[in-house]
Structure formats: C-alpha cells, structure tokens
C-alpha cells in the first residue's frame, strides 16, 4: 500500500473569496501580523499497490481528471 498527499491550490491571480474572508476574520480576532491567506485542499490518498511508478501515474491522472480543476487550480503530489 502506498500513501500519498495531494495538495491543490488556486492558481496565482485567481480570486480566493474564502482566503480573503479568513484573512479578515483573523485580523478581527487580533492577529495583527496577518498578511494574506490563500486556502486550498489536501487529499490523503491510499493506493492498493506497491509499485511507486504506477502510483505516481495514477495520482497524476486523478489530479488531472478529478481532484484539481486545472482551469483555476494547480496541484502537487507527494508520496509519503
């Protein structure tokens, strides 16, 4: 079994309303050092295979086809 972590973040320049709202809320809570916040997603995936290369290819495919919306998001894959 292979475990991997996929991180999906918004591309630069794409508006992040959630991040913006969180920024505001943190400021309101008194965290004065807060600069900016961008929110993304993380997927912890377990794969039933021992073949690392195969796992990598599968994860790449999952990102392209489902996990990330490549129109507005980037992704990165780390096998752990």
């Amino acid at each position: 079994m292979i475990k991997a972590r996929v991180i999906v973040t918004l591309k630069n320049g794409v508006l992040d309303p959630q991040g913006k709202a969180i920024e505001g809320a943190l400021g309101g809570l008194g965290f004065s050092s807060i600069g900016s916040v961008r929110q993304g997603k993380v997927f912890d995936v377990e794969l039933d295979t021992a073949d690392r290369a195969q796992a990598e290819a599968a994860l790449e495919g999952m990102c392209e086809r489902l996990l990330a919306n490549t129109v507005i998001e980037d992704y990165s894959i780390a096998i752990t």
Partner: protein
Amino acid sequence: MKSAVIQLPGLNRDRDMIAALTKVSGRSPVTVWQTETEIPDVDLIVLPGGFSYGDYLRCGAIAARMPVMKAVAEKAAKGVMVIGVCNGFQILLESGLLPGALMRNASLKFVCREVKLQVANANTAFTRSYAPGQIIRCPVAHHDGNYFTDSKTLERIEGEGQVVFRYVEGTNPNGSINDIAAIVNRGGNVLGIMPHPENLIESAHGGTDGRLLFESVLGKAA
C-alpha cells in the same frame, strides 16, 4: 414575549425569520448586529439561516467568533431561550453551545425540498405544542446538514433526550447520524435545527406545521 434576531453579514433567512416571529407573536423582533456586545432583554434569541461569511472556511465558523456570539452565550447561560436554524445551528455548534458538527451533505449537493420530521422529544420548551412522536412536514435548504458527533456524545444526547426532531426514515436528506435533524442543549434552552420551520407557518407556504415550534416557545399568540 420579546424576541431578538441576530444579524451577521451573509445571513439571508433573517427576513423570513423576522416575518415568522412577527406573524406568530404579533410583535416584531429586535435585530442585533454582529458587533454588539450586549443583547437587549428578550425571552428568545434567534440565529437565522443563511451563509454567514459565505460559509467560508467552515459553515458558521467565522460568525461564531464575532462579538455578538459572546453575548448570546452569556444570555444562554442565564437561561434565555436560543434557537439556531440551519446556519444558526452551525453557528451554535461552532460556538460550543451545542455538541457535534454539521458536515457536507452525503450527496455533496445543496438540497432544498420538503421532508418529514418526527418529534423525538415533545417535552422541550420548543416542542411542547406538538404531540409525542408526531410527524410533521418541513422544508430543508442546506449544503451542510449532515450531523455528526463521536459515539460517546451521541450516546449521551440520545440518552438524555437531547434529540428533538428526526428525519422520518427514507427522508433523511443529508446523511445525518441517527437521522438527527434538531437537538437541544442539556439545559433545554438552546435549540439547533437544520430544517426551516419558519418557511411553513401560513397558508401561503402551503402548510403551518412549523408554526407550532414558535408557538411552543413564544406561547400561543392571542
């Protein structure tokens, strides 16, 4: 009976709630803005539905940390009645006034439809006008109504009659554990309910099943 409706940016069923409270009790509630640190002397405080702060981060998370919620907690501790509907329920959970969490619907989709609810405890201040076990109609409209809590808490709230309404079998719209649609706190004065009784209180709504909830807590209008 005097009531107050809490207003936060992004809440959008406040108008529905103000109309319902006015129609049922015969007097309009006061409104309290998020930055207030004190709430006027009222018998009932309502957190209406909507998308406070866009439901960004987690539903109700940012709202729960606004100054007014401290004031709500203080009132609740003194025994004032509090109702949180939909997003209001989520805010009560995020503030720790009720146990558990509301997660994304099992379908992952927003759902707006009528469901059937069974009164699981007719012995609360919010349900005393209903008969025990009564089945009522009520609409839901939410994206995150999937109630979840750990097994210990679940056992406790079930054991102590804190589950107030359940989705009737086959109509659970969101995957809630034990079909839970509404719960009260241990003190019995704070109610969180996912469906929208305020949208079923007059003939124009096609039914009045939601009205009894408000009548229970406000006393029957003259």
